[in-house]
């Protein structure tokens, strides 16, 4: 099994699905020629492989999504790339009022089989370019929301998303594009709506997704040296939310920390914590804790940016605090 990057895994998924289904196209800003294909290189080379099927669009996110919705209604399976999650806000009406509503509001007469690929993330780009909107998308009935953490999950979930008959918001992450992991050569799919253990342990359950899965794994290695074994549940899909593994894990560890990158207030961690305590209150030995991003518009300065975001050390600190508490 070859080790490839998250970026390459996504590209392989796109290539395989384009080979399989001629109605799959890629539309987005600078997906053809710029830097070889895609602001972050995900579509590099695909325009040459699939003439006429990978097209640059104007910088008009509301139209990228809206034209994608219309094309999906008309029988295609467009994969629309929004360069970063920050720019999805320009298209929020199209995503929430149109993509998400069509099927239910029109009583099943219209389907919208499209994928909206976009990365969360940061990188010294300040407040308007360093955000995480996982919770916003996960809030909306009618959307399916996927946020893979590994190259393996990224490939299998993107292929499933393209084949899905509903609009899927596929949340990548700028800091994950270069990360590596094993991906089999043969074809495989990963179902939407199924979470996954990324590490087994007996002491504390960490429920997380996306980049924070990787930070949680780093934290787990540090904690293991101290004799603390954390179990990591990677949600992989944020809507519908599969809490079955988290629940199973809580029965065993009796302690839960939800780790998310986004802002804490009204974040997805709040929903997860509330749901878990509804379902497993009697199993809990401690209040469910949350690790999240600090609630400030992201500053540019190196030290301030780092202070704003959660990293492995914040997870370690949260586990320490939980293990030291006596209830």
């Amino acid at each position, binding site marked *: 099994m070859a080790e490839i990057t998250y970026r390459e895994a996504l590209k392989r998924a796109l290539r395989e699905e384009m080979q399989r289904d001629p109605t799959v196209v890629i539309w987005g800003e600078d997906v053809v020629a710029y830097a070889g294909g895609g602001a972050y290189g995900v579509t590099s080379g695909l325009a040459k492989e699939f003439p006429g099927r990978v097209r640059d669009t104007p910088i008009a996110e509301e139209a990228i999504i809206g034209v994608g919705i219309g094309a999906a209604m008309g029988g295609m399976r467009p994969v629309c790339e929004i360069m970063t999650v920050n720019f999805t806000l320009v298209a929020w009406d199209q995503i929430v009022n149109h993509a998400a509503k069509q099927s239910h*509001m029109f009583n099943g007469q219209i389907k919208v089989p499209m994928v909206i690929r976009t990365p969360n993330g940061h990188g010294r780009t300040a407040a308007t370019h360093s955000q995480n909107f996982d919770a916003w998308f996960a809030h909306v009935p009618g959307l399916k929301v996927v946020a893979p953490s590994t190259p393996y999950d990224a490939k299998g979930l993107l292929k499933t998303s393209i084949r899905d008959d509903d609009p899927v918001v596929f949340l990548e992450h700028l800091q994950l594009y270069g990360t590596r992991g094993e991906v089999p050569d043969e074809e495989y799919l990963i179902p939407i709506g199924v979470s996954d253990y990324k590490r087994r342990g007996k002491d504390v359950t960490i429920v997380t997704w996306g980049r924070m899965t990787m930070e949680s794994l780093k934290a787990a290695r540090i904690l293991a040296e101290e004799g603390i074994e954390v179990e990591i549940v990677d949600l992989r899909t944020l809507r519908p939310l599969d809490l079955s593994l988290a629940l199973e894990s809580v029965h065993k560890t009796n302690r839960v920390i939800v780790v998310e990158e986004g802002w804490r207030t009204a974040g997805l961690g709040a929903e997860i914590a509330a749901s878990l305590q509804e379902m497993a209150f009697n199993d809990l030995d401690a209040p469910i804790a949350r690790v999240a991003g600090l609630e400030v518009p992201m500053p540019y300065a190196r030290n301030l940016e780092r202070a704003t975001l959660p990293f492995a050390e914040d997870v370690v600190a949260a586990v320490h605090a939980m293990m030291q508490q006596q209830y």
Partner: protein
Amino acid sequence: MDKENLVALYRQMVLIRVFEDRAAEMYAKAKIAGFLHLYNGQEAVAVGAVSALNPDDDVVVNYRDHGWALARGSSARAVMAELFGRATGTTGGRGGSMHLVDVKNHFWGGYAIVGGHLPLAAGLAAAAQYLKTGRVTLCSMGDGSTNIGTFHAALNWAKLWNLPVIFMVENNQYAMGTHYDVHSAVPMLQKAAGYNMYAEEVDGMDVMAVREAVCRVAERARRGEGPSFLNVVTYRYRGHSMADPDVQRDKAEIARWKERDPITRFARDVLLKRNLVTPKELEDIQKSVEQEVEDAIEFADKSPEPALDTLYDYIYQQPVRNMQIAGSLIRPPTVAKDIPTNGKHA
């Protein structure tokens, strides 16, 4: 057009007029709730445009959509039942007045976010182009939607990709209550000129003029000559919606436009002038339409409300595993039995 088809256009316009008048009555009786945007005065636009299209051409419109649904072949029963919020409506009571749809007739819906449907129309046209179906997309909008970002983004994209789409402004000169001169900086056709798009101005009170213009631009699109733009100048006789007291428009202005009424004008200048019908036949049409709408009202009123256990249907086309754990999807709907139905809203 032969006599039969001309008379059919007349009947459709009368059907829309009578339907809207009766819908207003039903709104006043609180049989219909929410927002109700009536089409009186604009009948020639939908009827003329639809008559120029093939049955498999795609039609996308805004929330003032009753006339479009009826012109495109939805039954008066289904449309009225939808306004009543009943299971037999065009979307089973899901969408209401602003979100009628009839996909089997390639009527892709009424859309209620101003300008929101323009990119969707471009997308339907992009699919027709990519899949080589030969279909044309007709996208109707109000003049108020020509200032929002999606208007410009959709026109630019359509021209850039040479898409087979017709952007048709039903220019009734008011964005809700705001007159064109207050909401737009340039004349309407100049907006199309900004994207070097073929454009025509059309008399929207003349059903044949609308029909001929749409025929011309649909043929252009089918020949691969890309998008076009029609500024169809028309007028609505009633307020923006039933919630609009219509105090800001000049009564004399409304009266002047009513002198050019598309229905009486078509009857007088075409049907009677060419001796295609007798006054008695026009009366018979009026009566048969009134009967059809009365029957639609009875049908709607007798139809059941949608079953509660359909509440979650079609949120997704394709259910996924663990859907039952997805929060709200796990809980059956609980609704008090004695809630007032179809209450009138402001």
